Each structure stands twice: as structure tokens, then as C-alpha cells.
């Protein structure tokens, strides 16, 4: 079956978080009969438990829909869902490359938000046609007229005829479907040219091998076609092609303009990098499509299995996650305290959180993560320049000329009442004030330059507690800045615990050292000897706490005859001990590390 490109529309939906993207996608599928209302699990696209729970989209999910338009013709819509959070900008740009247009959803009560802007600009950068939609008009506080003006003023996009919808109730969804046909261009590309298919996502299937999610730009691919990618020399025979509806549905072929998947018994995930171009072995395309800008991890953390023997399981889990998350960086790590594990790089804090939760849920592994760190630039006195992601790799103080730390441009939206507390917080976090704009009577945007290492350490929680949850926070990396940084070590009974070392600003070292020492005192169980806990900077002790030796750890109840019970009690105690990590002479329960990392400064 040949398809008429004129009747295909490839688009994505972009929006600020919680503006109703997934709900609209669900509604579109329902209206096009893709899913019956009855069968519909709420927010179908967010298929990961995690996504549904957090109300965010992380992975890309394409869906193919059929729509019979009012002009009588039938259309194929390929919707590619995109993640909404700033940490996943990279993934958004991946899916945009596979589309011709983007539906921009704006919440009729909140208006244009930070991510509305960022995603709209991203879409414009990718030459997409933007189709604004005003959502949540059913709410009492909806201001659709004002919002339409706002879209025009801020984004420069005509919103006069933007559909005013309620994705929740289904109001005016048909108008959205009709506008998709009118406003979003038909696919570019030529079926008769050599094959060029952009891999925008992939995952590993135990039976079929790697499944590549592709947008066919030029040419045609079908079962039996010999294919190769531009980055790898290997050749593969296509075993299956198909589309998403939204479940995978095999098809004879995929042609220019279509979005679907290709399976070709590809064993290794490295052979099909996301962003690579697939072409045919014979009559190959001369050049690949423009790929993606590599996303650089900004936040780093050690990830270790709670049970040391699960190292290989953790490795497998991380590799599988990396398969379709190019932004995740992994390298083997070895900590004296935590054993073998990995040092992982993430795009941001949410990305880190999501990866950690996915490891625990999808792979059923318990993990310990070390305090998040950022990458520092170290300029040594001998002229050498280093990038340090792990505090334990920092050279001795005497060899360091100076250091630089990454900073961010932060934008905080808040009701005016909380401006004071937020400014206090930003000042405490070493922020530099840049600007304050009243967006309207109820919203102020504060702009600060803040060191990233202050953000990764409980900034969100502090912001939330100071603003009763009303403020929203967004940031982008804004380069490096010279800073007076020191390495803070924690010593237990005289031994440095490498997993607890952090790099902090000189002025914060004392406070952080004291906090961590206090927390350690709480979580380290008493042992047979007194344990001094010390915080040290460059060999100088700046804080000290003590865990007293325990005084009673004995089975001291009567009835000597029941030896079995005594033994059982000891066995139970031994089980508990197995979960401990030894740091020098001191034993620490693994959970303690997690507790320590959750140190909150807002006491």
C-alpha cells in the first residue's frame, strides 16, 4: 500500500510541565478512535509507572492515528510525545527532528511559562510550524483572551484562531484535529531518493533485538531490506517494520514521511546510536541527516548496589537505560566505602532522580547514591587543566592554582508575597541577582545567576518550603565561574570516608561539615568502641561529633535451655550486619548513606 504524503502529518506536542500535554494526546487518540474511551487508561502515552506517578513524560512515544477530516479525506497523524522537563530538552530536540509541526499547549490560567518559551524556541529552531492551543478553558480562572495576547506578545506567534479547548472534558478537540491538517505541513522528503531514516529512539527487545524508532525522511524500507547506519559498518537484514497505534503494529514497509519502527536482529545497542541515520546497503544515501547536539551531563553521582554482589545486575540495568538515553554517562567507579559501582552523569537533578528510580523499579535493584556533584575545572600550578567530576579525584591543595564551578541562569516564578524569602534563599545559595520582572499582578519572575553545586544541594526543597510550593524554578547552564572551593572530607574513627567527600565553597565548608557530622552521629549505630566523626578541610578538623560505644549488647534473659532462640537472635543481628559497609574500622548501615545525603539545611 502506498501512502499519499499529502495525507500525513507528523507532529509533536510541547508545553510547560502540567499544562496538559499528555491529556491532550489521550484525547486525540480517543477522538480518532485509536483507543476506546472505555479501554483507555488515563494518560496512555506516559506508559512508565514513574511517568504516570510524577505526571511527567520522560521517554519518547510515537503514536499513529487515522482521522477522517471534514473535507472527507482520511489522514494519518503521527504524534511523537516529548518530555516536558528542562532536563530532557535533549530528548525534545530529538523528537522535533522527526516532525514538521508542533502543537504548543498553553494553560489558560497560567499562561506562558518558562518551558513554554524554551520548547517553542526549540521548535522554531528546528523549523517546525507552531500551532498554539489554549487548554483548560473549562476552569473558572481561565483567561483565554489574555493568554492569546500573551502568546502573541511573548512568542510572536499568531494565536487569534488558537483552539480554546479543555483536554480534560474533550471540549473543541475536533478543532485541534482540523487545524493539524490546515496548519501543519505535509512531510518533506522523497520516496524515490535513497533511504534516510533518522533514529530518534530505541530500546532492546529480548526477541527482536534492538527496535529503532525512526522517521523516514527519504526513500523506503521494508522487510528484507539490507540496511546499515552511518556510524557503524555493520549490515543488518530488516526483519520487521511497523507503526505505533499506539502499540507496535507490523506493516509491509515504511516510506518517506512516515514514523515507525525497524527491527533487524540488531544484537548490540551500540550499533544504533540515537541520532544516527539508517540507509540501505545498496544505493546508499551519500550523507547522513544532521544528528543531534550531544547533551552534556552536568550533575554527577556515584551509584552503587546496596548488595555488593549485584554489581553486574546494576551494570546491565545502566546499559539498558543508556540505550535510549544518550545523555546518561556511565563509568566504573570504586569506593572504599561502597565497593564497586558506577559514576553516572545526568543532565540535571530530575534526570538523576528518574534514572535512580527506574533502576530501582524496573530492574528491582536497591542502590545507594552518593551526594550529587558537578564538574569542576581545576587549573593546576603546573599549567595543567583538569575537569573533576568526583571530589575524590581532586589534586592536593598545593597543586591547585584556582578552580571554576558551573553556574546557571535561574528563573524563578513566584507570587509577589514570596519574593523576600526567595531572595534570602538565593543570597544564601551564593546567587547573584540579575533581574526581577512583574509578569502580572500575581506573578513575579526573579532572575539569578547561581552556582550549580548550590542547586544540587537541597535548593528545591528549600524553595518549596519557603514559598509553600507556589514558586516554580527553571534553569539553564550558563558556563563556568572562578570560585573559592575546597574539598570537605568526613573522617570516621580517623579514616576518610571517600563516599562522603564533597566540594564546597570555602564559606560553606564549616556549616556543611557540622551538618553532615551531626547527621552521621544520628545514623551510625553505636559500636564496641567510641567513634569520632570529624569534618576536615585540607587536613584541618573543622567539626567533630562522637558516637559513644554501646554498653549493652548481650542476650541477658533467663532460661538458659533455649539455645536455639539465642542463636536465632544472633543470626538476626548478623543479617543486619551484612547490610553494613565497613569504613576502616567503622560499620555503617547502607541506608545511612541515603539518610546522610538527604541532609536538609532548613532546620
Amino acid at each position, binding site marked *: 500500500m502506498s501512502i499519499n504524503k499529502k495525507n500525513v502529518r507528523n507532529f509533536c506536542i510541547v508545553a510547560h510541565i502540567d499544562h496538559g500535554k499528555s491529556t491532550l494526546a489521550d484525547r486525540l487518540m480517543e477522538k480518532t478512535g485509536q483507543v476506546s474511551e472505555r479501554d483507555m487508561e488515563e494518560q496512555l502515552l506516559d506508559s512508565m509507572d514513574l511517568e504516570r506517578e510524577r505526571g511527567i513524560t520522560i521517554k519518547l512515544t510515537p503514536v499513529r492515528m487515522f482521522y477522517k477530516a471534514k473535507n472527507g479525506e482520511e489522514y494519518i497523524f503521527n504524534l511523537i510525545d516529548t518530555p516536558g522537563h528542562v532536563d530532557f530538552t535533549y530528548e525534545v530536540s530529538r523528537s522535533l527532528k522527526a516532525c514538521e509541526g508542533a502543537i504548543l499547549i498553553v494553560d489558560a490560567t497560567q499562561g506562558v511559562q518558562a518551558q513554554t518559551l524554551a520548547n517553542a524556541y526549540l521548535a522554531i529552531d528546528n523549523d517546525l510550524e507552531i500551532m498554539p492551543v489554549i487548554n483548560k478553558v473549562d476552569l473558572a480562572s481561565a483567561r483565554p483572551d489574555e493568554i492569546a495576547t500573551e502568546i502573541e506578545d511573548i512568542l510572536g506567534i499568531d494565536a487569534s484562531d488558537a483552539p480554546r479547548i479543555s483536554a480534560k472534558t474533550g471540549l473543541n478537540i475536533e478543532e485541534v484535529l482540523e487545524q493539524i491538517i490546515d496548519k501543519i505541513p505535509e512531510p518533506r522528503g522523497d520516496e524515490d531518493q535513497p533511504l534516510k531514516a533518522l533514529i530518534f529512539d530505541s530500546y532492546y527487545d529480548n526477541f527482536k533485538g534492538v527496535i529503532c524508532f525512526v522517521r523516514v525522511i527519504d526513500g523506503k524500507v521494508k522487510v528484507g531490506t539490507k540496511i546499515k547506519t552511518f556510524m557503524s559498518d555493520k549490515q543488518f537484514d530488516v526483519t520487521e517494520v511497523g507503526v505505533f497505534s499506539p502499540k507496535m503494529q507490523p506493516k509491509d514497509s515504511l516510506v518517506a514521511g512516515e514514523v515507525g519502527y525497524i527491527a533487524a536482529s540488531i544484537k548490540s545497542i551500540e550499533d544504533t546510536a540515537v541520532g544516527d541515520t539508517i540507509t540501505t546497503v545498496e544505493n546508499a544515501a551519500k550523507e547522513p541527516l544532521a544528528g543531534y547536539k550531544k547533551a552534556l551531563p552536568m550533575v554527577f553521582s556515584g551509584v552503587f548496589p546496596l548488595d555488593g554482589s549485584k554489581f553486574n545486575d546494576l551494570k546491565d540495568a545502566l546499559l539498558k537505560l543508556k540505550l535510549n538515553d544518550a545523555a546518561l554517562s556511565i563509568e566504573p567507579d570504586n569506593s572504599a566505602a561502597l565497593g564497586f559501582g558506577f559514576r553516572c552523569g545526568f543532565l540535571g537533578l530530575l534526570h538523576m532522580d528518574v534514572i535512580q528510580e527506574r533502576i530501582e523499579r524496573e530492574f528491582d535493584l536497591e542502590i545507594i547514591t552518593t551526594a550529587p556533584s558537578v564538574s569542576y575545572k581545576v587549573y593546576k600550578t603546573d599549567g595543567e587543566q583538569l575537569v573533576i567530576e568526583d571530589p575524590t579525584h581532586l589534586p592536593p591543595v598545593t597543586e591547585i592554582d584556582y578552580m571554576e564551578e558551573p553556574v546557571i541562569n535561574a528563573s524563578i516564578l513566584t507570587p509577589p508575597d514570596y519574593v523576600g524569602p526567595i531572595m534570602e534563599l538565593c543570597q544564601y545559595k551564593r546567587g547573584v541577582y540579575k533581574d526581577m520582572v512583574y509578569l502580572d499582578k500575581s506573578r513575579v519572575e526573579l532572575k539569578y545567576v547561581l552556582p550549580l553545586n548550590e542547586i544540587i544541594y537541597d535548593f528545591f526543597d528549600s524553595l518549596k518550603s519557603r514559598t509553600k510550593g507556589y514558586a516554580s524554578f527553571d534553569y539553564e547552564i550558563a558556563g563556568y565561574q572562578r570560585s573559592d572551593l575546597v574539598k570537605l572530607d568526613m573522617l570516621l574513627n580517623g579514616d576518610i570516608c571517600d563516599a562522603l567527600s564533597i566540594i564546597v565553597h570555602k564559606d560553606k565548608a564549616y556549616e556543611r561539615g557540622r551538618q553532615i557530622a551531626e547527621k552521621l552521629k544520628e545514623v551510625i549505630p553505636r559500636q564496641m568502641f567510641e567513634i569520632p566523626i570529624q569534618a576536615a578541610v585540607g587536613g584541618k578538623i573543622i567539626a567533630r561529633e562522637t558516637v559513644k560505644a554501646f*554498653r549493652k549488647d*548481650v542476650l*541477658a534473659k533467663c532460661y*538458659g*535451655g533455649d*539455645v536455639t532462640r539465642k542463636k536465632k537472635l*544472633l*543470626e538476626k543481628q548478623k543479617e543486619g*550486619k551484612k547490610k553494613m559497609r565497613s569504613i576502616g574500622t567503622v560499620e555503617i548501615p547502607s541506608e545511612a548513606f541515603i539518610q546522610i545525603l538527604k541532609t536538609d539545611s532548613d532546620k
Partner: protein
Amino acid sequence: MAGLYIHVPFCKQKCTYCDFASYPREIGKVESYFACLYREIEGRAKQYENTKIETVYIGGGTPSFVDSKFIAGALRQVRKCFEVSSDAEITVELNPGTVDKAKIDEYKSVGVNRFSIGLQTGFDDQLKRLNRIHTAKDFLLSTNLLKGENISADLLIGLHDQTAEEVFKSIELAIAGGVKHLSVYALTPEVGTPIYTDYLNGELLSDDETADIYEKVTEYLKDKGFYRYEVSNFAIPGYESKHNLNYWRRGEYIGVGVSASSFMAGRRFTNTFKIDEYINAVIYNKSPEISSDIIEGEDAKFEKIMLALRTAEGLSVKEFNEEFSADFMREYKEVLDKKHKYLDINDGRIKIKDEYLYVQNDVLLDFMKE
């Protein structure tokens, strides 16, 4: 050579900390219980033929709460079914307030030669709070009936607001009553007992406070001529409980009655905790056991170590090597090195140093093989 334990699961009322098999409302079953007990004694004697009994211990519950004829009957049955050595140590537990001269005379007539009195504390308000049935004065009335006898007493530490001085006073009271052996147990709040609520509400002493009292009490008793021969047991030399020492030395013993534990021929087994189940099992010639484990290999070795390290005499390396055809010093070299600070290794014996006896679990755990 073995010990024999007889359990009497009856008492007047439950103490607030008690989670032992003892049932105040089941007193109507005394006759049938003892009938079954006699049968179990007979059965065990057949099962473990030619076992010579060196010690007998009648515990509970409150053995002195039931008519002394049952206790006497049990001992006669033991003598009938087993060979009992002529110098056997035969102990019966008493509660002050449940004894009179006739009872004690009957006990003595069947060979009881050691009396263990549950004093717990010498303070009436504390006794009342524990739901004990007696007063401090009752204790002295009991010991008056036992002049010249080998008497032991139990004391508890860790009670509500208890001070070391109060425990000293209780000890003085016990000594005044002629006690030559003292067991000092740390109150252990178990789930399901009334005192557990007090524990949850923080009304009992903390472990640190209890340990503090324990240390002071150990010193105090030393001054009074009582040496600590096991974690919780103190005696004037020569008055140690042979029955208990047999437990720590991993000797054999037979336990009869509900909840009683035995260790015979490498097997540890425990009887049901329920009186009805026990009676039914015995009547129908079924086993009253609810658990049975053959102890061998590393398990047996660990038991030997775990039990021996509770005592002042410690573990004899020679005895261990002979018993298990092992080389203790080589096999446990790693632990001995790691924990040498807490151990005394002298004259072929391994002991936990006095000052670490009350924090010994951590040392024991290292001896436990994975």
C-alpha cells in the same frame, strides 16, 4: 550425664514482663498435666536409655504454686525412670508467698537440695508494678523456712526509674536471707507483654542506664564475695548452679513439660507451649515437640563458642579441638586477630574480657560463619 528440666506452667497471676509458658487460668488442668508429665518422663527415659541425671531443675511458671505432691511425684518418677546420681543438684523454683513449712519439708523429702527464689526486687512498689504476688517481707518469711539451705535468688535490673542503690538494697536483702547465688537478669520487654507498653513509652531504663547498673552491681557483688561466672549469674565460689553450667558447656539435657527445650544426641528440640496440645500429644502417644534440629558442623561449633564465651571459664581450646576434631586457633585466626582487643587468650582458654562481657554479641557475630 545429663541435666533434666521440668516445666510447671502454672502461676497465680502473670507478671507484667512474663512471656514464658505460664497460665494462671489453667490451674484446673494441674492433675492431668502432671499425669502427662510423668508419662513424658517415662518416655524420654526409654528414648534416651542409660542417661545418668546429674542435675534436676524444676522451673516455671511457679512450681511452688501447685500442690507439693505433684512436684514430689515428678521427682519420684524421675528417680524411678532414670539413674540419678547420688550427689545430684536438685533445684526447685519458689515464689515468696507461695510456700510454707509443709511444702518445703515435702520438697526436701524427695531430695530437693537447692531453692531458687524469684525475688526480682526488694521494693514493694516495684514488685506491685510488676504484678508480683509477694512483698519483700514475704521473701524473708520464705528464707526463714530455708535456713541453712542452698538458696539462690533472681533479681531484675532495668525497671522503671530503678537506681543502682536500689539494686544494692535488694542484694542486701537477698544476702540477709542467706542467698549464696544470684541471677541478675536485664528486664527484656517482649511484644505482647503489658510491660512492652511501658517500654514503648520510654518508662523503662535505657540500655545505657541498665548497663550502668549492671556494671555497678557486678562491682558491688564482687565486694560481697559473689563472682560473676556467667553474664547474668553470680555466686559465692562453690555455689554455682551446676544445672546452668551444663547449658553453657553445651552438655546434654532433657526438658519435659510444655515449652521445655532439650539437647540430646546432637539434637535440639522444644515442646509445645500450649497445655492442651501437650496433654493431647502425650495421651495419644504422639510427640509434644514443635521443633527439632540436628545441630552439626559449623552450627555446632558456633553454639559451643557462643555459650562458652558467656562464662568466666570461657572456651577450652583443647576441649573444642577434641570435640570437633578441629584446630580452633587456625580456623578462627581471622576473628581472633580482628577482635583480640576484646578477648583474653590464656592457658589454652579464650574468654571475653570482663569489661566487654555485656557487649559481647558483636564479638560472637564474627565467630558465626556465613
